[in-house]
């Protein structure tokens, strides 16, 4: 930005803020103008949303119910070791080939892929791809309330891999299924603080937090639901540690 541009943008900002502050003090729309900034920061007038509490099984059940209703294919696995074989079975029924793109993901790489010798994992470390049949990423949590998977950006699970493939494979640890969005978010905060100790990861939320609740869709053609608009046509979720 040139100096004059910078000046102009400063002026714009100051005028904007001045107008706004004036309008806010004059308006006081609901008589709720806080007496001070401290009051705003310390007193939360608004109590958090508290639905009836569901237990673990009920959460899993609800997650399944909603994801299915949102056109998602789901598989339960007792543990992570079963992922390669299950994936091999599932992909044998589809026409997407056997090459799966992943990020620099130590968890996925540590699985025993010898058990699915025909599958080939391809690492993505920043390249843009146009045609992509299969990609796999790991959700860090899920919110049962609407069948919603939580992903976060980073080299382990590059965000574009959630949106570019025709078929998106998502891994989810059943132990990370929470009831509400707030709980899933809080869980994300907790694990990123833990991780920060070792790897100097940026704090939560990272650049991108992606809530995904099914494959891509549109109703723009005569209000008819059609899958695979710009993002994946299919979403396959493997839930392990069930």
């Amino acid at each position, binding site marked *: 930005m040139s100096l004059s541009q910078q000046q102009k943008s400063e002026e714009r900002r100051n005028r904007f803020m001045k107008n706004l502050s004036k309008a806010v003090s*004059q308006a006081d729309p*609901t008589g709720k103008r806080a007496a001070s900034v401290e009051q705003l920061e310390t007193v939360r*007038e608004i109590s958090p949303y508290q639905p009836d509490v569901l237990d673990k099984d009920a959460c899993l059940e609800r997650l399944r119910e909603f994801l299915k209703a949102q056109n998602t294919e789901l598989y339960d696995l007792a543990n992570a070791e079963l992922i390669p074989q299950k994936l091999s079975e599932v992909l044998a029924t589809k026409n997407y080939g056997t090459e799966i793109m992943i990020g620099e993901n130590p968890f996925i790489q540590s699985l025993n892929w010898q058990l699915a010798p025909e599958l080939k994992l391809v690492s993505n470390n920043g390249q843009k791809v146009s045609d992509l049949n299969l990609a796999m990423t790991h959700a860090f949590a899920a919110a049962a309330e609407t069948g919603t998977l939580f992903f976060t950006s980073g080299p382990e699970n590059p965000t574009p891999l959630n949106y570019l493939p025709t078929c998106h494979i998502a891994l989810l640890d059943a132990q990370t299924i929470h009831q509400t969005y707030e709980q899933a978010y809080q869980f994300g905060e907790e694990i990123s603080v833990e991780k920060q100790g070792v790897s100097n990861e940026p704090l939560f939320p990272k650049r991108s937090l992606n809530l995904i609740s099914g494959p891509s869709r549109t109703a*723009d*053609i005569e209000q008819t639901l059609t899958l695979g*608009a710009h993002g994946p046509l299919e979403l396959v979720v493997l839930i392990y540690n069930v």
Partner: protein
Amino acid sequence: MKNESEDFRERVHHALEDQNLQQALSVIPTGFVTKRSNAKAALPDFQQLSDRAVEIKNHTLANLDHYLEKFETAVKASGGQVHFAEKPNDALEIIDEICKANNAKLIAKGKSMVGEEIDLTHFLEREGYEAVETDLGEYLIQLRNEMPSHIIAPAVHLTREDIRKDFYKAHTNLSKERDLDTPEDFVREARQILREKFLNADVGITGANFLIAETGTSIIVTNEGNGDLSQNLPKTHIVITSLEKLVPNFEDTTVLLRLLARSATGQPITTYTTFSTGPKRAGDNHGPEQFHVVILDNGRTELLGSKFKEMLRCIRCGACLNHCPVYQNLGGHAYGTVYPGPMGAVLSPQFFGAHAKELPFASSFCGRCNEVCPMQIPLTKMMRHWRERGAHDQGAVSNIIMKLWAGLAKRPRLYNFALRVSLPIASWAGRQNALMRYAPGAKSWLKHRTLPRLATRSFQSEWREKMSKNKNEQQQ
């Protein structure tokens, strides 16, 4: 967007005559309306959430300067920049500067109503950029050079026939023999065409449904994933938005999210809900290098202290459009502004001034909009405020009529005389429907309606007769 509200009456007339449009609109009651009602019924806490949502927005609006500064600080801390635009032209200039600084040629644009408000895409095209709408509905209307006819379903006025013609005309590099019949055919073709745009775009522009003050996060909700591709692949991400989108923190956002999709499309949540906080971090190998948020005012701060302040709670769900009998019959284009329906009838006169002054009259005051609005905005009350203002401003004719009437009403004898003379004439004329067509302004009104019969006598004279009859009966 070109504002065409001035010949509102004419457009209403055309909309009602347009068979194609009427066919396209017929899906709204069965689609959006039914789905919303089911989604609401499936969430027992809907009303409580709505009450909380109102509190959250009122609280934020009452302290908007504080939250805006907080948002700015947080965006900066995450490596992004916030730009302030008082007027549409400021926003356009800022966006142009960012694009120029990035040597941008191709721009991928996600759906944004603020973008429509400032007519961003046309501006970018005029400035020589290739700007491509990536939301399928927006893409369809870009091909036709039309404005959106609905705030969440911009191409709801189009039939498959319309789209087929446009695709054959626009996508000339594809075989002329190809089939374009099923919705899948159209969606696959658009996917193929737009995929290349995402990958080659220099700048991605999206809107924002909410802005979180605490973390400096902007949020979009989509079903297609176009917004995500638009903002993840290009080197620069620009968010074009407005200041009333602010909420204090994540916990507040989720309350609004629970209401938004259910009220809009009847989904429990849209397929994609994306929270963006700043540009690419150290160690990231994907994502934009620059993150800009352009915040538009365009008359919103004026609303804060006005009778229209509650309108700033609007989350643009579109429920008021879907349930409005006027919208259901006319579609969005008849309103002539990018914000149609009841919410548009309140917002457009503020944003677009005189051009949209007739819109508050486009209501039957049935009140469905008030009932379905998740943010409990008293839409009909605010349309009335505009009407009152309009009556003040209009001066001339309506003022003279009001004064005449007031003069008569204050003089009972004169009033009665006037009624006795005029009623039989009006009543006779009313029975001659054909004749009434020649009355000024009556032609278009009568085309789709019949006149109620006027009484031949006034209420007062009937009342007098009734009273004297009663008296007689009592005396007998």
